[in-house]
């Protein structure tokens, strides 16, 4: 019997080439290409008065220098605003090369093309740009005050303003027996994949065809955008995504200025051109996320139940708004987590600053939302002297209330309706896993030894797998090998393995016979992209549906050949056979031969499909009117709504009483992403997410000075954690299937990162005895908080809150 692959911890099929140094990443391609480099703005805000390129012209090996003046037509216009929304008041996007104004340090102003990168960089260094510097606007406060304005023609810095409300939250809060206000603050971080962005273009002048390789999270999106900008038909552009060295969101933005300039120059020069981003460019000129200020007002009853929740968010979107307002929308909606908020009002203002753009980074606004809600839950517990887990439990949506409509519009423009989930069961699991109820004794013992330890808990719900759609194409070759294609891209999630597992089960073929292609518009032009934990849900479902179509056809053809009823057939190990009589069967490859009526034979096998070989039915055409030749299936999966994964993290930390260093002693995760396609891959996603969550809570921040210079634009100063910092993660799974898709799965890619800041803040707070409202927290900051606390500048947490496990003691 064939083993079922779905749900098995199958080794990844991608890995063999990656562990032997044979991966083909963007910068490993295009050995003969010219190299591009960019003159970038050294100022956060300036007007470009003059560009003098003469100094570069005698650099040997220089090929071309381009400025905005060289661009025309759509290329000279601003880049597209990818996701329009009615709440956007003034949506500014950059130009491919700066036109008159620059709005952040790192903005591309001049493009240089040269024989190699060293020459290109030399030429960049010799180009003189004369800037008239203008006032920078750095930080949310400065943006909100609007004493200085980022974009000419605007009277303030508000890019978008949105209010969503369910019920009358303010009235509910005013009438509530208890009321708390919190001011919260999260700083900027960034995806920081190990491989930066990169683009490599080949223009074939004879065929007037463009082949573009890009380290992107959306092949089809890049294709459409580049075609539009370069004035090409979609059919003239092929986008191929090679191995991608991590994305985490930053590579979903498209088209980047460089992503347009490289193919534009390749066409202009009639020569291959490549640009591979360096680390400093990635820090300053790619994208960041997270920065928000939140003001929470909450009303609740004496049992800790929410009656009204009013959240006001200021969101820093950086210099431009190419990705619209997805991040603050996600924050506003996903903030609700597994809870019933009572009446809810959320308002955000998305603000321009003269810094790098802000677009989704793994979690995409959820870490901030969860921070707001979970800090609120802890504050309620403190206020009432309740156990923090009990406050959460009092507010959970119950499993029998699913599907649960939160009454808002989600980031996909569709209703925020949770499809399934069992939050009480998750809470029981996480309490057991971390030993929640026994922690008080542990902490008291530690305190007696002069140690400070604390425990924290945070819950989240994550909308995953949003539409509009993804496609799958499955084809059986006459060799019996199966080729699978989906349009979305992969950047380390093991899609090739997971999709092969799904197809193996659907078709009854061994994994070793299946090859999967992702992110290649030549194989699957219709696609959206890889974001929002949608790979497995969307493309998994699409290839399953495509495989089912193919299987139906295979059984029909085999039934003819075997003179059996299709209903009596099954496919086992790549062979169609009669159920119960395995000797009566036909190889799937042979079915593929028969599926394509031939005039000309090309090998032994294909003879079987030629016109004089078999008994033909002369009453029917060789290919029926509603059929087509070949053994393939294509289908698309378009869900009604997003599916909602969930989870809970608990963490135990120890803080050094003297140096204020923070150490994670335990990190526990309970995770529910529906049916698991491959536990090995899902656990890897959780581990990686947790590492980024810990990083964002304790180490990473983008440190801009008041002039808009990024002070820590390197791995030496932006403190990404090594193996020596990331804790061991203890994981327990819960599987609540999604009723929305054929496989019962939910997305898993982002989950691990989401509650990181919230749960670590909670644990540090528990260890210290005063509220933590701002993340990340470094030893230096914790030291200063302690000082303020000692001087009475921060109120101590009331009573029983710091005595976890003793509810109402």
């Amino acid at each position, binding site marked *: 019997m064939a083993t079922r692959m779905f749900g098995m911890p199958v080794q990844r099929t991608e890995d063999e080439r990656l562990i*032997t140094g044979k991966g083909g990443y963007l910068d490993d391609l295009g050995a003969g290409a010219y190299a591009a480099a960019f003159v970038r703005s050294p100022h956060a805000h300036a007007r470009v008065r003059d560009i003098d390129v003469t100094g570069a012209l005698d650099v040997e090996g220089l090929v071309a220098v381009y400025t905005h003046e060289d661009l025309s037509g759509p290329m000279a216009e601003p880049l597209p605003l990818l996701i329009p929304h009615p709440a956007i008041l003034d949506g500014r996007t950059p130009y491919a090369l700066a036109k008159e104004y620059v709005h952040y340090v790192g903005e591309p102003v001049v493009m240089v093309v040269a024989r190699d990168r*060293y020459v290109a960089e030399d030429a960049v260094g010799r180009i003189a740009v004369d800037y008239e510097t203008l006032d920078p606007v750095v930080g949310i406060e400065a943006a909100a005050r609007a004493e200085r304005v980022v974009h000419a023609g605007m009277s303030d810095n508000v890019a978008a303003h949105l209010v969503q409300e369910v019920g009358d939250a303010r009235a509910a809060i005013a009438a509530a027996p208890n009321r708390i206000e919190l001011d919260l603050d999260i700083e900027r971080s960034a995806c920081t994949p190990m491989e930066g962005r990169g683009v490599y273009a080949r223009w074939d002048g004879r065929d007037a065809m463009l082949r573009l390789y890009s380290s992107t999270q959306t092949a089809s999106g890049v294709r459409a955008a580049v075609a539009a900008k370069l004035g090409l038909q979609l059919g003239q552009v092929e986008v191929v995504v090679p191995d*991608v060295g991590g994305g985490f969101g930053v590579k979903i933005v498209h088209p980047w200025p460089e992503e347009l300039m490289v193919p534009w120059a390749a066409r202009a020069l009639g020569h291959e051109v490549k640009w591979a981003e360096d680390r400093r460019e990635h820090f300053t000129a790619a994208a960041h996320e997270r920065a928000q200020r939140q003001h929470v007002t909450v009303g609740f009853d004496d049992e800790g139940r929410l009656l009204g929740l009013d959240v006001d968010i200021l969101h820093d979107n950086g210099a431009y708004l190419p990705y619209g307002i997805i991040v603050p929308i996600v924050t506003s909606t996903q903030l609700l987590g597994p809870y019933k908020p009572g009446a809810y009002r959320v308002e955000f203002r998305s603000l321009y600053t003269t810094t790098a753009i802000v677009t989704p980074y793994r979690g995409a606004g959820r870490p901030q939302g969860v921070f707001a809600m979970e800090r609120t839950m802890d504050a309620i517990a403190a206020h009432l002297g309740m156990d923090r887990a009990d406050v959460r439990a009092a507010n959970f949506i119950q499993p029998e209330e699913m599907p649960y409509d939160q009454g808002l519009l989600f980031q996909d423009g569709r209703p925020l309706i949770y499809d399934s989930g069992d939050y009480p069961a998750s809470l029981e699991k996480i309490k057991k896993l971390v030993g929640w109820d026994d922690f008080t004794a542990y902490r008291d013992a530690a305190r007696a030894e002069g140690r400070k330890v604390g425990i924290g808990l945070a819950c989240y719900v994550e909308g995953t797998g949003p539409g509009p759609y993804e496609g799958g194409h499955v084809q059986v070759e006459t060799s019996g090998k199966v080729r699978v294609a989906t349009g979305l891209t992969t950047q380390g999630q093991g899609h090739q393995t997971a999709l092969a597992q799904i197809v193996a089960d659907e078709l009854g073929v061994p994994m070793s016979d299946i090859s999967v292609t992702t992110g290649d518009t030549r194989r699957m032009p219709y696609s959206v992209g890889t974001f929002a934990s949608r790979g497995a849900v969307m493309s998994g479902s699409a290839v399953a549906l495509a495989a089912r179509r193919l299987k139906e056809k295979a059984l029909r053809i085999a039934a003819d050949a075997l003179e059996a009823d299709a209903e009596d057939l099954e496919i086992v190990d790549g062979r169609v056979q009669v159920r119960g009589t395995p000797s009566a069967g036909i190889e799937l490859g042979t079915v593929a031969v028969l599926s394509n009526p031939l005039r000309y034979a090309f090998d032994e096998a294909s003879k079987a499909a030629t016109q004089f070989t078999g008994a033909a039915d002369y009453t029917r055409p060789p290919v029926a009117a509603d059929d087509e030749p070949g053994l393939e299936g294509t289908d698309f999966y378009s869900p009604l709504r997003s599916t909602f994964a969930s989870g809970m993290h608990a963490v135990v930390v120890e803080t050094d009483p003297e140096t204020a260093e923070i150490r994670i002693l335990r990190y526990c995760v309970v995770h529910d992403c529906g049916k698991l396609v491959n536990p090995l891959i899902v656990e890897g996603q*959780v581990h990686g997410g947790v590492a980024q969550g810990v990083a964002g809570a304790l180490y990473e921040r983008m440190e801009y000075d008041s002039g808009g210079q990024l002070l820590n634009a390197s791995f030496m100063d932006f403190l990404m954690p090594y193996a*020596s910092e990331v804790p061991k993660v203890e994981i327990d799974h819960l599987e609540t299937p999604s009723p929305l898709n054929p496989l019962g799965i939910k997305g898993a890619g982002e989950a691990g990162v989401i509650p990181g800041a919230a749960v670590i803040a909670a644990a540090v707070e528990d260890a210290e005895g005063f509220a933590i409202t701002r993340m990340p927290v470094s030893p230096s900051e914790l030291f200063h908080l302690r000082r303020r606390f000692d001087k009475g500048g921060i109120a101590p947490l009331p009573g029983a809150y710091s005595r976890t496990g003793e509810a109402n003691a």
Partner: protein
Amino acid sequence: MRVTFEVNGRPVTADDVWAGESLLYVLRERLGLPGSKNACEQGECGSCTVYLDGVTVCACMVAAGQAHGRRVRTVEGLSSPGGGQRLDAVQEAFLEAGAVQCGFCTPGLLVQADDLVGRTARRGLGVPGDAEIREHLAGNLCRCTGYEAIVEAVRLAAERADAAVRGGAR
């Protein structure tokens, strides 16, 4: 300048090398060995870790001229330089433990992991503990895995090497 050295057991020469050029650039751009990755150019990420005369170094911080006459081994040469085996034991362990996600940091991590196994278990000095593994890998950044499966892979490779050494000793 001309630089001649040995890579993965085979002599190589690069001409017209600029004095400030790194070993990493020479490997990737001149010798067709793109396995070692460029991710920071300042020795912080370890993606370009290679053996130089048997010692692991960041190839981005070695001037090409410093490699002249020396022996370099890269990820491409990990699996039995003499041929034969398809995968080296550490590579095999990475595969089994699920230690690879995007794979960009993997070449450097493999070399550094191989170094640890070579200094410990393969010499009969036992299987390194969790802290020792993490410390030895603490110059290699990975953004995808959270390191857990990587640590597990190194332990697995070391355990096998340890068993082989002990088996051989019996």
